């Protein structure tokens, strides 16, 4: 069991979709059968849709495989193996207070590790030179199980760390935002000519840079510095900042070129690492496939049309994450990219239903995830 998944996660060319379609379908088939046989709730969902995972033969069949909305994981603990076999139980950052509970088995973690190693290698993110890490996120603490905190700290092993500075520190009174410290750390790294890597939500990075700009601070960070962001642009909807002006601000305040700005995208419910290319496109790696679905009918849409993002991967055995419906709207582009990769790329437009914050009906704050 898991033979095709292992093969898929052993591929060296991480964006060679065409030549992995067959193996992807087979890996999905074996993953679907595994969950079907080990997870009663998942079996019920497939049975209700009269879908037999053994019938999966093609990509088209995968379009028919019932997907599970992220919302469903928030209400149901869907585990396909005993909890003892899961070294990690991650929760999503859950701004609405509801969190997905997702289990990860050792094999999935191993696949994930291989994926990260290959992806970072492709994107030239590994470095032996010690760097100052600025983490626009939570300092790890046992009270915080959020996936993003785990990822952010885990990421600090990509290059040797000289120093780690967390924007959100854990104090005896709980978590406290301390952007002043981050600012000082950036200025110090600039003076001492040390490479910096920043990691975290774009919004925090953006607000700090804006403040530094208004204070007239202009740095020229070491050319090996990288600004990495992840966790979504959700907080930006009110500010209406587009990525271009974000990169322009990074250049102006920190002196870091936009080709050294790297963005990641991923979700607890879909633990695949998407990394943008130098033209800032999220190409689809071999480990996953993306289906864009019509917002009214949920039918798959052709490339270039906007719809709901449905993400598929056979990576995980502990929880049936093989076809997940996100709350995001996006477009899958297949018109080629100047970076040379042929794999289609995903443009994320934003969360559904976040814009219309206009209600005074009681209880709606939670519902609209404000």
């Amino acid at each position, binding site marked *: 069991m898991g033979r095709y998944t292992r093969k898929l996660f052993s591929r060296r060319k991480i964006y060679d979709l065409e030549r992995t379609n067959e193996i992807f379908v087979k890996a999905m088939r074996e993953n679907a059968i595994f969950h079907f046989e080990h997870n009663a709730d998942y079996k*019920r*969902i497939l049975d*209700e849709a009269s879908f037999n995972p053994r019938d999966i033969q093609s990509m088209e069949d995968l379009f028919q495989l019932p997907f*599970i*909305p992220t*919302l*469903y994981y928030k*209400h149901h603990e869907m585990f396909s193996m005993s909890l003892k076999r899961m070294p990690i139980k991650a929760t999503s950052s859950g701004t609405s207070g509801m969190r997905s509970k997702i289990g990860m088995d050792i094999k999935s973690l191993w696949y994930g590790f291989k994926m990260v190693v290959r992806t970072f290698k492709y994107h030239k993110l590994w470095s032996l030179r010690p760097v100052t890490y600025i983490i626009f996120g939570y300092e790890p603490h046992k009270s915080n199980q959020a996936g993003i905190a785990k990822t952010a700290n885990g990421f600090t092993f990509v290059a040797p760390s000289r120093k780690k500075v967390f924007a959100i520190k854990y104090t005896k009174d709980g978590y406290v935002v301390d952007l002043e410290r981050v600012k000082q750390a950036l200025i110090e790294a600039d003076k001492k000519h040390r490479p910096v890597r920043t990691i975290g939500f774009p919004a925090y990075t953006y607000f700090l840079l804006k403040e530094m700009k208004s204070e007239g601070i202009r740095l020229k960070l070491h050319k090996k510095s990288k600004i990495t962001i992840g966790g979504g642009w959700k907080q930006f909807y*009110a500010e209406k900042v587009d990525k271009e002006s974000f990169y322009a601000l990074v250049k102006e305040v920190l002196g870091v070129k936009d080709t050294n700005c790297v963005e990641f995208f991923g979700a607890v419910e879909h633990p695949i690492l998407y990394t943008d290319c130098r033209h800032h496109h999220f190409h689809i790696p071999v480990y996953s496939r993306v289906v864009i679905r019509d*917002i*009214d*009918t*949920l039918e798959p849409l052709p490339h270039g049309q*906007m*719809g*709901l993002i449905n993400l598929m991967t056979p990576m995980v055995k502990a929880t049936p994450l093989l076809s997940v*419906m996100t*709350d995001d*709207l996006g477009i899958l582009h297949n018109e080629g990219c100047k970076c040379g990769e042929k794999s289609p790329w995903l443009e994320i437009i*934003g*969360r*559904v*239903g*976040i*814009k*219309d*914050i*206009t*209600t*005074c*009906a*009681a*209880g*709606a*704050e939670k*519902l609209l995830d404000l």
Partner: protein
Amino acid sequence: MILYQGEIFTDELQMKLIDQLKIDCYQTINHSEELNTMEVINACDILARKVKAGEYNDIILPLLTEFDIPYDYFIESIPMFEKDSLIKKCEIELGNNFEHLPDLDKDNRRKICPLGILFHIAAGNVDVLPAYSVIEGLLAGNINILKLPSGDRGMSVKLLSELINIEPKLKNYIYVFDVPSTETETLKIFADIADAIIVWGGDVAVKAARSMASVNTKIIEWGHKLSFAYATLDASEKDLKRLAGHIAMTNQVLCSSCQGIFVDSKNMDQVKSFAKKFFDILVEESKKHKLVSLGMRGKNTIEIYNAKLEQHETHQVIYDEKGMSVIVSDDHELELSMLFRNVWVKSLPREIIIEKIKPHKNHLQTASLLCNKEDVSELSDKLAKAGIIRVTKAGDMSRIIVGESHDGKYALREYSRIVELAKTT
């Protein structure tokens, strides 16, 4: 952006101005002549006419589109700010002789005085709302400190500075700050200066206001509310259509919008066939209104799909199409719907209206009645006893009438006090 005594400042000056705020407010109370209600009314009247004439359409129209507020609904609300309406409002809320109250007895006279200083914490749901709140404060003669809601597009500052331009006397009575809700220390300073905190918003905002107020600060809450329809099985097709039209027009986002329908029956088969009938009507009526935004339709399509995955546990009956739904549940709970043309239908025999609705207490607002004439009086009475503020006809749930109460209370009365003065003999 800060509006302080008629001048606009950038946020950098916030701390400096806040340091001065209490002194300036007290100075106004100490030295300025009292704010005359008629002067406020005249200024509002001029402003309302300018709005109606389309002078601010360049900012207003995009906001209406963005917030999905129907243009007609907006236009309908403008006369609320015109002279006759405001005079009527003052007379209804404060009494016909609000400017010259009759004496209490031969030795004591009375007058209506403002509370003094109001601190308005506005909600972000409608952009004109913060300005409206301040205008109510002014009508009662108060000094107003307004905390803008996050995501304010400058509409409040624009309208209020126009008001000051029209009536310069108002400049000492209006202070607007753009302080985020997270800056509790600053908000506490405002709360300490103010005689009362006016809080608009959901339970979270109301709780926050309660926690920042000292015991001698009055809190006036305009919280979020829930509204619904109550139908008997013989509800007319015409009423069902009007209700469906109201749901499609308001997209269920207003406090007074219908979230769902309670049916006066114990029989679930009857409730289900009622729901199916209403669903068909909703789909038809919906066609007469603007499409729901893509994002909201997408959100609801996923939620309905999710509800179907959970049907084996919830035993819901779901009628749906393109992000629109009517969902029958077997409980009797009043709850928020998925909004944007998604309605729940539940059984609620009239005998248990009070038992099931009353626990929602302060969240209750409007109920529309879809029933025979003979039932109106009994059902209205039950709903009123259960805590409902307003019982309306099917399509009128969000109607605006000059002089109506706000969530069962009169704002101007809340913002005033009666002072009794012994006559000199």
